[in-house]
């Protein structure tokens, strides 16, 4: 009391007068709620929303001006500039402002959750095609996987391990509004990306936030800024990644004649008049177990991968214009992206973006953000066909074909041969373009309007409404093939007389979000002498998704043009993309309220708590809400320690709950419908039984972390090091499982909330200014993420097994599970007492390269189908990235990014299929059995054992990939043209090399397919099966950026 009194006295006696001013950023935009204080006194003021303030000062007072995210400035009260104070963004401490997960723009130093971010300047030069390319390796704890090199396929993203068995992807926000996915969004329009990784940060997102949130902010203009134009063009030269080891054996083990030519049915192999090669005779190891794979091909051989995959060009052109008037800002982006496919044809995209902000009157701004995306593709082969749930298996024949077949051979009609292997159903992908055409046109419009009113004090109202409209038009035509030589033995499409299928789908997604926030500063607003600030947020969030699709099909097409729906004899149509599409139409609605209260005590600590309560059309019989509480706390010892080298240190902890919605209509019991013949309709019991009482899937997450920034005492070295580390621990309960029913019940599964998963891990990121000299600046970054998810509970404690994928209680998720070769001669069966090999026969076996082999037959022995083992998880033990950039003399920039996945397993289905035909490169490798070396065919054959999964084909999928290597030079100073503000040329490479022991083409291009290429869901794995995916691309890119 005395102290307050005395300071009041002082002020009374001083010559005080009111001064006013305005605080702006470098762009002239007002800095809202900046703090203005008189040094050494309790006097202070808070700027209004537009940055203006009034304060009582003496002329010789020092005025301290500070704001979140800006460098603090001290001015004399007499300074003439007091009327217009410009604050610089605080780059040194990199104290960003984040929004995602906290609701209102908050200084990153004062948030209690882990928010990762990527600014546009840190996007690698080689990230041309997608935002995922920009994000990969940049976000600790995010696993971003490019499953295919086919243009337009995007990537799968998992944040912090497994949350549910269906691998629900993170929620995607575009400028605060939920959108369906990242696909097609333009890298050039991105200003910044923020990522929150789990439920602990899920305060805002409630019933849909458990898988984390990725928020993209598009480029904005600046007020009072002249137009600035940036033109960016890139030309990329793409080819597939081929791996470090050939797939195909050099030698063979066919029957040959005396001259070494391969025989079929006793005579030399020949091509039939239709171009089919007869099946060569294989030397039979049942007759002679000593058959080895050692015969060189006398026939000409072909590299089918070389024949099928081309080198292709991609080009991208983007133009950005931004600037602003006194009360407005604008940014326009226009891009055109054309990617030729390494297999066939191309993918094109046009993006138009605008971001317009207007201050209509003081404190009230309106912003409209629009993205228009048009994509068009006529891709063939690969995995382009959206009609196929399975990966298109055309790569099968590229890989798995006799080397003496020439895929480029044309038959007497001038066409490529459709099936060039008698005795095999695989088709020559080069012949596809003769008989198949497809085209997808999609139009996606994302529009988001934001009304924001900042009251002069305390209260801010914000309203956002966004709508996404996504139309897809699809045409798929298989020509009438009655003129083809192989009409009766091979065809493209489902019927040899051809078909044309057109489908149309429209998806709309609406999100309406109203937020009121109240910010109170007890010191400034209530003249209380505690540096306490309070932020209260109340929000209401409403979302609705609607989808409709229909198709029409015409088959048995006329063999003459034009080919259209009228030219077919059989016509059908229906809801959905194909007959029997179970989700041809859907709608989904959810809404919830959010309440959050936080207190900050100076810069020292803060605490917050809140909840979100959600209703949804998909759970609790659509009547019950689910509530997700949350709390967080941070403490900044750096405020107390005042150490010279310690720029900032924060310790934080957060607990939060969030959910994942059940699938559409999973709670509604319906009959299946199935069109039958002409005019018939079958109704039937579904073998998957719905459950009206389905609840939301819930995750409870605790994260504890620290962010620390320090510097060395050296002048140039290690001038800033920021380390951010988070330990997280999550329990997911009520995870939905389609639990098996006894078959005699008449149904297969019942959908219910049955699974519990525990996950934990670390996310660490480190950024350092390693060296900062006058001519050289070297920055480095490291990202590390480790996640381990365990299945605690499954329905009835019975394993979920789907091919080589399994979910087992007490085991990690994403595991591979299969029989193994015997590893010792006295190995026991699962009962623990019966040996696999009768001890009296032990002498007939030996252990070769770690597996038991029958000396006489050369066959490997394999455990019983009921004796399977866990063979590791498809998820890495950790993934890590190393990012470096060096700037020389301000003009030359060299940057590189290495991504490292460690400890993940891959089931190499391709290699297993190659074993079927003795084509795998492995067949060339000799082993020594019974003292005699040889590439014994029976040994490898016995490991193939048809399509049955076996551990032999489980491989270490670890890899280190040079994701980006870029060199760019800024010629602006050199050209000395007045109107050119920027001229930068860059050369970069993407996926330049990969270090791996993996034996397939690309350890990254994997999915969750079974041995036949069907995508497996509900196995908690989105990768780890190498089923003939199109490998990712190795690209060389030339880029030119001109700014004026």
């Amino acid at each position: 009391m005395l102290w307050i009194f005395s300071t009041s006295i002082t002020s009374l006696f001083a010559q005080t007068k009111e001064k006013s001013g305005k605080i702006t950023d470098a762009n002239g935009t007002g800095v809202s709620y900046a703090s203005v204080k008189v040094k050494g006194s309790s006097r202070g003021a808070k700027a209004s929303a537009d940055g203006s303030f009034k304060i009582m000062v003496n002329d010789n007072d020092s005025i301290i001006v500070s704001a979140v995210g800006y460098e603090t400035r001290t001015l004399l009260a007499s300074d003439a500039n007091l009327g217009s104070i410009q604050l610089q963004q605080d780059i040194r401490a990199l104290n960003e402002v984040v929004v995602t997960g906290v609701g209102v723009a908050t200084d990153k130093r004062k948030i209690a959750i882990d928010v990762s971010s990527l600014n546009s300047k840190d996007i690698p030069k080689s990230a041309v095609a997608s935002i995922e390319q920009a994000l990969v390796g940049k976000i600790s704890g995010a696993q971003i996987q490019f499953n295919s090199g086919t243009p337009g396929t995007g990537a799968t993203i998992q944040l912090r391990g497994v949350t549910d068995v269906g691998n629900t992807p993170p929620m995607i926000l575009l400028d605060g509004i939920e959108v369906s996915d990242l696909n097609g969004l333009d890298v050039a329009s991105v200003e910044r990306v923020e990522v929150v990784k789990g439920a602990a940060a899920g305060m805002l997102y409630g019933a849909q936030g458990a898988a984390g949130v990725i928020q993209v902010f598009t480029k904005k203009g600046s007020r009072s800024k002249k137009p600035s134009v940036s033109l960016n063009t890139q030309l990329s030269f793409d080819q597939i990644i081929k791996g470090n080891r050939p797939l195909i054996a050099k030698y063979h083990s066919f029957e040959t004649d005396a001259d070494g030519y391969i025989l079929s049915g006793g005579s030399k192999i020949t091509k039939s008049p239709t171009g089919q090669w007869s099946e060569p005779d294989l030397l039979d190891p049942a007759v002679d177990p000593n058959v080895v794979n050692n015969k060189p091909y006398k026939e000409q051989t072909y590299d089918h991968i070389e024949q099928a995959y081309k080198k292709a060009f991609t080009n991208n052109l983007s133009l950005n214009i931004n600037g602003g008037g006194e009360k407005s800002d604008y940014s326009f982006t226009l891009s055109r992206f054309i990617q030729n496919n390494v297999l066939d044809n191309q993918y094109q995209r046009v993006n138009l973006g605008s971001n317009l902000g207007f201050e209509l009157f003081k404190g009230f701004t309106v912003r409209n953000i629009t993205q228009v995306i048009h994509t068009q593709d006529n891709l063939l082969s690969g995995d382009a066909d959206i009609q196929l749930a399975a990966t298109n298996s055309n790569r099968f024949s590229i890989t798995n074909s006799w080397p003496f077949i020439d895929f480029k051979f044309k038959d007497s009609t001038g066409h490529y041969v459709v099936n060039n292997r008698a005795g095999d159903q695989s088709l020559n992908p080069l012949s596809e373009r003769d008989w198949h055409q497809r085209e997808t046109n999609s139009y996606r419009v994302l529009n988001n309007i934001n009304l924001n009113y900042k009251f002069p004090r305390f209260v801010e109202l914000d309203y956002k409404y966004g709508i996404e409209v996504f139309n897809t038009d699809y045409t798929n035509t298989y020509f009438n093939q009655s003129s083809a030589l192989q009409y009766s033995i091979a065809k493209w499409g489902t019927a040899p007389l051809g078909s044309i299928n057109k489908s149309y789908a429209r998806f709309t997604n609406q999100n309406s979000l109203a937020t009121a926030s109240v910010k109170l500063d007890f010191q400034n607003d209530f003249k209380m002498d505690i540096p306490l600030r309070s932020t209260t947020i109340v929000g209401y969030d409403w979302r609705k998704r609607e989808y409709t699709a229909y198709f029409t099909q015409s088959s048995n097409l006329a063999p003459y043009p034009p080919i259209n729906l009228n030219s077919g004899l059989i016509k059908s149509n229906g809801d959905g993309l194909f007959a029997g599409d179970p989700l041809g139409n859907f709608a989904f609605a959810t809404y919830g309220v959010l309440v959050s209260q936080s207190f900050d005590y100076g810069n020292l600590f803060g605490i917050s708590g809140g909840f979100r309560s959600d209703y949804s059309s998909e759970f609790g019989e659509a009547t019950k809400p689910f509530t997700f509480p949350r709390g967080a706390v941070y403490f900044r010892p750096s405020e107390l320690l005042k150490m010279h080298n310690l720029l900032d240190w924060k310790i934080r902890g957060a607990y939060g709950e969030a959910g994942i919605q059940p699938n559409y209509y999973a709670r509604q019991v319906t009959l299946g419908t199935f069109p039958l013949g002409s005019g018939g309709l079958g109704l039937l019991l579904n073998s998957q039984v719905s459950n009206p009482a389905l609840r939301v899937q819930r995750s409870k997450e605790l994260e504890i972390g620290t962010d620390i920034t320090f510097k060395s005492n050296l002048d140039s070295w290690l001038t800033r090091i920021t380390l951010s580390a988070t330990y997280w621990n999550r329990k997911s309960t009520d995870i939905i499982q389609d639990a098996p029913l006894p078959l005699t019940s008449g149904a297969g599964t019942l959908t219910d909330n049955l699974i519990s998963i525990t996950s934990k891990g670390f996310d660490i990121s480190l950024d350092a200014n390693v060296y900062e000299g006058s001519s050289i600046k070297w920055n480095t970054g490291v990202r590390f993420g480790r996640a381990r998810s365990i299945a605690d509970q499954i329905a009835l404690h019975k394993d979920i097994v789907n091919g080589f994928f399994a979910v087992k209680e007490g085991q990690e998720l994403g595991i591979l599970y299969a029989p193994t070769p015997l590893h010792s001669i006295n190995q026991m069966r699962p009962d623990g007492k019966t040996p696999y090999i009768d001890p009296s026969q032990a002498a007939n076996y030996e252990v070769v390269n770690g597996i038991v082999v029958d000396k006489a037959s050369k066959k490997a022995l394999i455990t019983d189908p009921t004796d399977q083992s866990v063979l590791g998880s498809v998820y890495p033990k950790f993934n890590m990235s190393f990012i470096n950039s060096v700037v020389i003399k301000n003009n030359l920039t060299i940057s590189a990014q290495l991504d490292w996945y460690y400890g993940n397993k891959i089931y190499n289905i391709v290699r297993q299929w190659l074993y079927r035909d003795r084509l795998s490169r492995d067949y060339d490798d000799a082993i020594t059995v019974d003292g005699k070396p040889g590439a014994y065919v029976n040994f490898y054959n016995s490991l193939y054992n048809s399509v049955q999964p076996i551990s032999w084909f489980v491989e270490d999928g670890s890899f280190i990939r040079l994701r980006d290597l870029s060199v760019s030079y800024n010629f602006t100073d050199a050209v000395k043209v007045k109107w050119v503000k920027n001229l930068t040329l860059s050369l970069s490479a993407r996926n330049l090399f990969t270090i791996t022991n993996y034996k397939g083409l690309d350890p990254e291009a994997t999915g969750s397919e079974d041995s036949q290429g069907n995508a497996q869901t509900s196995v908690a794995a989105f990768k780890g099966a190498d089923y003939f995916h199109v490998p990712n691309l190795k690209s060389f890119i030339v880029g030119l950026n001109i700014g004026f």
Partner: protein
Amino acid sequence: MYKYKIFLLSAIIVMGAVACKKAELQLVNPNAPTPTSALITESGIESYAQGIIVRPIVNVPQEGVTNIQELAWAQQIILGDECYIPYGNFAFRWTNQVYKVTLPDGRSFTTPIGVPQKTSLQGFNSRDAGELNAFQYEWSYCYYFIKQANTILYAVENPALTFSGNAATKKAVLRAWALWWKGYCYSRIGSMYIAGIINNDTTFNFTVNNNFVSRQDIITEATRNFDLSLSVLSGLTNDADYYAVMQTIIPSFSDNSIAHLVTPAQWIRQINSYKARNILVSKKIPDMTAADWTAILGLANQGLTASDNIFKKGLTPDGSNDVSGFTFPYLLANQQNQWFFISERLVQEYKPGDTRLDRNFVQGVVNDANKRSRGLQFGTRWIARNIEDGGSYSTITGQGYVNYACTYEENALMKAEALIYTGQVDQGLQAIDEVRNYQASGLPAVAGTGLTKAQALEELRRERRVALVFRGLSFFDARRWGVTAPASAGGGRVGAIINVPASLAGTPGNTPMACFVEYNYMDYFDVPQNELDFNTPGPGSVPVKQ
């Protein structure tokens, strides 16, 4: 200040427009009807009756969406050595894995797998084995059928259900239909599994019982349902209301033209034939009693005639809106799919001069031997001639029908067999001749040629092989004739043609040779573990595994 008011007002209006209404959450699946809304209408219940044939379309682990009824048919065809499938998919390779082949020179070759079929199939009897559990297919689809049939019977009794025309007739047809399928499915289970469950739960819940009963009791349940169906059918005539229902519950691709629909009388004869089949295939020949033969003869005499329509299944020419995919038997056999390879052991059954051989099969397009080193039985010189080219068992444009149940030929040959075994050899041979003429075999009559009983039985055996090919009976025949028994128990087949690979034959090319084939197959399948994992047999249950 008025501006603030405008803002606030507009904000409130916008928010009001999207304000929460709980009613908004009551989104009803627009894609599919519910049981309560659909099954009280005539077209709903008839669509539900028609939809029973879609129930076998399920997602098979590791294989995707497949018609498992057709997989079960394929199992029968390969177990009966009409065709072989060398591929591992769906465990086919292990299902038709003969134990041993002995060449004429005495060299014998055990299956490369090393163990009899029973050991392999039982080894795969777990959920872990996924698609490789051969026991699951017939079991699953039969119980799916039964459940839907039970609920048809329940829904038909709903007082809220209304019909146009004669409701009593229409309800009766639907009852007969449901009971027929129940009889059919219990017949399949009782003919193929050592034990089964009787599920008469008619509710839309999916409760089960754990009382596993013997295959004989399952056949008794089949008979009970057949008899209930018969009693319904006996009150029906082929009037307009009857046809109206039949035409909606049989899909167009299975030929629902009036002239080809099964009449009540034909349906009754179909059931009689099936009841005869159940007696015939449930026992081995030495166990058959005189009473059994008499019963078969009695039923067969009231069974299908040459002009009867039967229950069959076809395809649409472009594969859309049918229930088959590539698993339809005639699609499995075509040159594109190459799943069914025509067995040399089938072709050798055709008597010289039988025009059915050339009509249906082509020699010389393929010459496979020991395909992929998987066993000597996996080899052939034959492919099926496409229906488009005059054949019967292969199609490329969705032609032809397969039969769900009995045919005239089967009925006639059951009659023949019963006659021969009851000492009426020549009458039996006459029945065989009738079948041969019906199929335009071009073979001379054997009746009246003085054949002995043994010779007559050999004529019957060959004719059953040839006339009933692709009808799902060959394995039952091989089982009851003792062919699939282990050699030590007198099983196996002498003089079975194997296309022996050149290296083994010591000839320049592959050479067909008459070998001894020991099949050594299981007689009946075990109950699949997919059931037992979630339904432990209760007290009093019979053994579920062998």
